[in-house]
């Protein structure tokens, strides 16, 4: 599904570039903007908790974005709305000290404070609908700001706690060592606890380089946590905060 979208976007863009038969861009009232970009960022608490001692690795993920926007520009100010299909993923490894975590599987449950290595994977494929106010700053640059709503189509929040130990319950609880291979480490999966919708605000710039082609950059700041509010295992509220960098075609 996502591959098809990316390929068709690329095809569409090359077609536009090749054709290049569109009329005068400037002062046009209605624009269709096709975008393709890459999301970089994290699903993280605002402020790293003191129980995270170091960030050991932060890997690139298939966090691509493709979408189409419709822009109305009666004057300097305008309005934009569209549909984006994107992934806000994260693949990171951290070292923790006394980080609260819970392992739940079926009828079994294990909860406590983990000191050691955590490998965290987040995948959030979503349909995002932005509604933005636009403002033309000179000939080439447009500033955009506005809210968005995302509907998640595929979600994963899982990880591995290894090379350390869990103190069950609290710091005086029984200690259980965790090793560095399957069966010795603990895995967790909170995918089902994730919200199906996310809300946030986005702000960014479109910078037109040629008549049709431009460079875009947005910051998408999630205002709601990624988990259901009654889910308490992950102590901090995690917000999806991602920047998009990409290209667009406007016509």
């Amino acid at each position: 599904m996502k591959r098809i979208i990316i390929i068709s976007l690329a095809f569409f863009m090359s077609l536009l570039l090749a054709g290049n038969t569109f009329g005068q861009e400037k002062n046009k009232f209605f624009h269709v903007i096709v975008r393709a970009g890459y999301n970089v960022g994290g699903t993280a608490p605002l402020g790293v908790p003191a129980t995270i001692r170091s960030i050991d690795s932060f890997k690139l993920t298939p966090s691509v974005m493709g979408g189409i926007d419709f822009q109305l520009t009666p004057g300097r100010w305008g309005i934009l709305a569209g549909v984006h299909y994107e992934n806000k993923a994260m693949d990171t490894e951290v070292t923790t000290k006394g980080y609260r975590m819970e392992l739940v599987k079926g009828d079994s449950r294990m909860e406590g404070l983990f000191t050691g290595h955590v490998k965290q994977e987040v995948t959030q494929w979503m349909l995002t609908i932005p509604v933005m106010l636009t403002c033309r700053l000179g000939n080439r640059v447009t500033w955009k700001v506005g809210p968005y709503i995302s509907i998640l189509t595929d979600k994963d929040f899982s990880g591995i706690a290894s090379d350390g130990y869990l103190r069950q319950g609290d710091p005086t609880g029984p200690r259980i060592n965790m090793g560095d291979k399957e069966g010795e480490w603990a895995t967790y999966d909170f995918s089902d606890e994730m919200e199906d919708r996310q809300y946030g605000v986005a702000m960014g710039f479109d910078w037109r380089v040629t008549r049709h082609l431009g460079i875009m950059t947005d910051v998408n700041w999630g205002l709601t946590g990624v988990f259901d509010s009654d889910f308490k295992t992950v102590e901090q509220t995690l917000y999806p905060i991602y920047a998009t960098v990409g290209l667009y075609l406007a016509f």
Partner: protein
Amino acid sequence: MKIRYSFALLFVLLLTSCIKDELPNAECDILSAWVEGDQYADIFYNKSQMRLENISASEKEVVFTVRSLISMPKKLPVHFEITPGATIEPANGSEQDFTKGPVTYTVTSEDGEWKRQYAVAFKELNLPTYKFSFENYETVELYGNYYHEFYEVDQSGTHHNIWASGNSGAVLVKTDSKPEDQPTYSTPNGYAGRGVCLNTQDAGSLGHLFGKPIAAGNLFMGKFILENVLVDALKATEFGRPIDRVPVRVTGYYKYHPGAVFTDKDMHEIPSRTDEASIYAVFYRNKDSEGKDVYLYGNDVLSSPYIVKKAQVASLPPTDEWTRFEMFFEGDEADTQILTSQGYNMTLVFSSSKEGASFEGAVGSVLYVDEVEVSFEELETTDAS
């Protein structure tokens, strides 16, 4: 790609720059304990007993084994290594009177939020009896789960926690469970008075996740080291405690009923196999050639080169009636000199599934054990004289 990498790098730098200062330690464990000074060496059998290393984090007591409580000085200092930053009360290395029983030490964490209490005691090695009726048990609570721990009592009323089981591991993945829900518990329906019930259980979804799908009921002389239960499950069972006499025979009573479906460690059914109970005893040297402590674990309890003698019940046929079992120690002669310097350990092991340590067995296998008695060479000669 380069742009993406630099963006990722920038993000990591941003995050890393917000790493907060490390919080003070919240743990408050005694890691090791020792008695210093040659003037105290005489109260121990050997110098290695003056130092207790790698004290398990689930331990609530710290016990030094001494020759005789009568020869103990009125007061002596015990030194502790505790979690960094934590404090201990009474003071580390202060002289305390251990002759009246255990002294309670309180360890407070560096952040001041958490406390743990330890009973530090000096105990004589020998039990008043080697006839185990399993009348004494304590109910322990662990996060809403309850389980039984068996102990023995000597003439002075001192408790000796010589028995261990995997209960503390089994309850890790349970919620709101009762003692009778655990793999090992005290039953009022013993051969005489109370007895032990051992049963093989499904270890629940998390147990399956960790590749440890069943929990066999077990009871053994030694320690259960909970820390190791995931990383090296066979090292969770530390078998043996020092003994000053040579065992000859073990007798007792049992009932056994194997579970219906035998499964391997991946929970695959093996129709050709029927579960078996196991009862055995091992007598082994507890020091290596360099004088370091030796313990037997799940991986070598029946095969270690340190084993001097072992006794195994050849077969325990299923029975619903209390049935007597008897087993004799076979192997090499014990060395009198090693014996007098406390160089031997003994363990006695009961399990509802023979291969339970490798997570093979049948859920629902139940073994009852009661009135177990060990007889000794030394005692027999004493009786004769």
